[in-house]
């Protein structure tokens, strides 16, 4: 190799580095976003109407039965949901990841569909199916068995009904965690067991299950948290059944005259419990870690099920009937039927509901417009925020990056309705009166969706070797330049996936929006909820289907992008 002598280019780079300033600005924004509502929440819970410090709110919370009963109810619901979700989702996850279950891709797709369905919509659909007298399933039961009018098989307006609906839309969390853990388990571990003579079942029991246990525990905790902080489903099913949960109680405290101090006090136990459980989850998972880091890994060897194959498949499909197939059918039925729970026939099909929703209901246009605008804004800003904060923490670019990472994931611990209360308290007072504008909703959505977006991008950053940025910096690029020219293009697919993810989550968010909206800033989820109050089921079905259509379009688009991970947490509503 001969290298010609080149001229020396003397070069002294001297320029103002905007990197640090920009990065600090983003960090400050994050602090305001998260810390402000939380501080107001704490302040309000400790003050009384005249502004003095008091523990009265907490005393009332823990002594009056009006508050104690919902607390106990919530705990019971959360625990049972968690247990049921685990017992259903774990075997399914094992079947899909470790055996030769046929058509497992369909199973995974249906699980994704239940992930993406807003729980409150599912609750409404299940009302159509399992209301004791008018529910389609009960009618069918009476039709088959000839039972008298007032007998029914299912009563959705009950605690067990509520737990059932919650489980339907919470089990995907456990499924994804377990399936992912099993997917990543190297086949060697089980091979080692079988070489020593362990048959399939023994291997599963002694090797696979213990290794998947951390993921299962984490899933149980997440399921518990989701069930505890859901608002939409209890609001729809608990009231007719005659009981309150903590979230519906908090919401009821906002009715006239609003008692924000009590609402704040009632929110804090939820918050604290969530934080504790998340620490526990982190502790359980953090020690072992998801991935088994080693040299070469072999793909898992699938356990042959033989004759059990189709039985297992049928079992899975029966489970997936519940969150997806039956409810969607009920919604389609209600959308085109004259009466929501009359079975649709070619004879009585009507477009009346569609006509009503899109041409007569004056709130539809506003709600659609707001939803799409907010979804787009939140997705764009949220992705940007997540990219920069993710960079700051992944590359340790500022002092205190650990605190930043904590702040970015902290909102996971704040239930949606609690955040709504906190934001309401923060922004209905000077200097920033944002109540009544879409900006307060935007803040709520950003805060709620940031953690998941941040985590997604974190794993993307980990996949981009830091030396790629170092190489550009040593050649003269500032941090921001390196981020823009090197890292961002490499993160492209993750960035797009994150954008879509935030968009979809915003569409289905209800628990914060229900506190913060006004007539001008209504969104589709709130509109559906309002319609539920007056019992307009046909209109709800049409809007709900429109919502699902929008969501699935975006999700399918994203899934076309190679490399979109499926282990992603969606916020509950």
């Amino acid at each position, binding site marked *: *190799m001969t290298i*010609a002598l*080149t001229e020396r*280019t003397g070069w002294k780079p001297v320029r103002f580095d905007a990197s640090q300033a920009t990065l600090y600005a983003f960090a400050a924004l994050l602090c305001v976003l998260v810390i402000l509502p939380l501080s107001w929440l704490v302040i309000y819970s400790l003050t009384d109407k005249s502004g003095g410090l008091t523990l009265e709110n907490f005393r009332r919370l823990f002594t009056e039965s009006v508050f104690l009963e919902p607390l106990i109810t919530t705990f019971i619901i959360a625990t049972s949901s968690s247990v049921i979700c685990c017992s259903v989702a774990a075997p399914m996850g094992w079947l899909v990841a470790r055996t030769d279950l046929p058509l497992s891709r369909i199973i995974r797709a249906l699980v994704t569909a239940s992930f993406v369905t807003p729980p409150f919509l599912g609750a409404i659909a299940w009302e159509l199916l399992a209301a004791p007298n008018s529910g389609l399933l009960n009618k069918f039961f009476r039709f088959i068995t000839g039972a008298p009018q007032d007998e029914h098989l299912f009563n959705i307006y009950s605690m067990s009904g509520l737990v059932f609906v919650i489980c339907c839309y919470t089990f995907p969390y456990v499924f994804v965690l377990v399936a992912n853990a099993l997917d990543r388990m190297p086949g060697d571990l089980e091979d080692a067991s079988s070489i020593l003579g362990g048959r399939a079942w023994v291997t599963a029991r002694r090797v696979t299950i213990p290794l998947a246990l951390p993921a299962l525990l984490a899933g149980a905790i997440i399921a518990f948290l989701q069930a505890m902080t859901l608002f939409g489903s209890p609001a729809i099913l608990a009231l007719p059944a005659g009981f309150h949960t903590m979230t519906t109680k908090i919401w009821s405290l906002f009715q006239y005259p609003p008692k924000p101090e009590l609402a704040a006090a009632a929110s804090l136990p939820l918050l604290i419990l969530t934080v504790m459980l998340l620490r526990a989850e982190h502790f359980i998972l953090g020690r072992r870690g998801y991935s088994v880091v080693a040299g070469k890994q072999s793909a898992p060897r699938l356990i042959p099920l033989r004759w059990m194959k189709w039985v297992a498949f049928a079992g899975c499909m029966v489970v997936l009937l519940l969150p997806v197939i039956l409810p969607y059918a009920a919604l389609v039925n209600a959308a085109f039927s004259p009466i929501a729970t009359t079975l649709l026939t070619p004879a009585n099909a009507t477009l009346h509901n569609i006509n009503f929703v899109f041409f007569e209901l004056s709130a539809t246009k506003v709600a659609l417009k707001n939803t799409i605008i907010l979804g787009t804004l939140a997705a764009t800003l949220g992705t940007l925020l997540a990219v920069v904060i993710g960079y700051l923490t992944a590359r340790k670019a500022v002092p205190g990056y650990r605190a930043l990472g904590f702040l970015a994931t902290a909102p996971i611990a704040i239930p949606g309705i609690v955040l709504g209360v906190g934001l309401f308290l923060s922004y209905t007072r000077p200097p920033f009166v944002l109540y009544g504008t879409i900006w307060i909703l935007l803040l709520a959505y950003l805060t709620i969706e940031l953690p998941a977006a941040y985590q997604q991008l974190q794993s993307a950053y980990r996949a981009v070797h830091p030396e790629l940025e170092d190489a550009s910096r*040593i050649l003269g690029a*500032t941090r921001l330049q390196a981020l823009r020219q090197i890292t961002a293009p490499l993160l492209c697919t993750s960035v797009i996936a994150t954008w879509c993810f935030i968009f979809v989550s915003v569409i289905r968010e209800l628990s914060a929006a229900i506190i913060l909206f006004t007539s001008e800033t209504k969104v589709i989820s709130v509109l559906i909820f309002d319609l539920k109050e007056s019992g307009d089921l046909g209109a709800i079905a049409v809007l709900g289907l429109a919502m699902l259509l929008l969501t699935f379009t975006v999700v399918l688009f994203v899934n076309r992008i190679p490399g979109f991970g499926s282990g992603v947490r969606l916020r509950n509503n």
Partner: protein
Amino acid sequence: MASVELRGLTKRYDTIAVVDDVSLHIEHGSLVCLLGPSGCGKTTTLRLIAGFMEPTVGEIFVGGRLLSSPARTLPPEQRNMSMIFQSYALWPHMTVAENVAYGLKLRKLDRDTIARKLNAILSTTRLANMADRYPGELSGGQQQRVALARALVVDPETLLLDEPLSNLDANLREEMRFEVRRLHDEYRYTTVYVTHDQAEAMTTADVIAVMNAGKIEQAGSPEDIYDRPRSEFVARFIGASNVVKGKALDENHLSLAGTALRCTGGKFAPGRDAALSIRQHDIRLHAAALQAVENVMKATVVRQVFLGSSRDYLVEVADATQFRVVTSADESIPQGSAVWLELPPDHCRALRA
């Protein structure tokens, strides 16, 4: 080009000092190799020089300018250095040409100049016909050359190399060792080269700094390091050495298995435990006892392996101390036989305690 000076450089994470009071002066235009096992702090030292982290204590001067100190550290983009990374760090979304021209574009040179320099470096690194390929489409050797081209085209003051050859196969590595040295001779950049491979160090370096547990154990020319190791670690790390322990009789004699061995290269503390090192191929084996020769011990052959061009013996002396001896292939002394070891005093290096 400029000289690089490290003064008392220390980097601590919590209480662990990854780089511990490292002081080194690198003449401008010389190639200094930081050699040591993994975890010894050599890569951290390199990254400190590059400016990717700040020192806990100590300073770094380049060309007399203070670049790094605990109070203020100039960021990498302002140091006018270049670096080749162990993973090459080629940007997968840019072509070879774009990778190489990146630094030039940052310096805001005009298009013609960029094109000219780019073509020059590509042709000399034999990458001209791959300018439009993506790094993922290149072989390991070609990727390494792209990394090289990218680092050199910007005419840095200082060139930093982080184990650049460790990802290449053995043959290519050998060839590239000489290339790196040749390049250096041509351009005379001040170069800091990090590696764990002593053959690379011996081939390429003007000065080798052997590092262990964050400290520089010994710095000197390759001959210095090899012939005159001053500590057990250096002796073991460079070349194949026997390091044996015994008791010092006086300043120059070590007692081992009843024999007094005269050593050179350092002084013992009399009466204390001491060690000596001797290269495996410096020990001579005799089938019969010798008269009037210094440093002769009786031993038994424990094991003998024929390696084609040489024989590898494991012999054991009276107090169960074992020596490895490498001789030419001619003489074969069978296992279990008695043999006499001659340890020439000039090759018996007294080691620092």
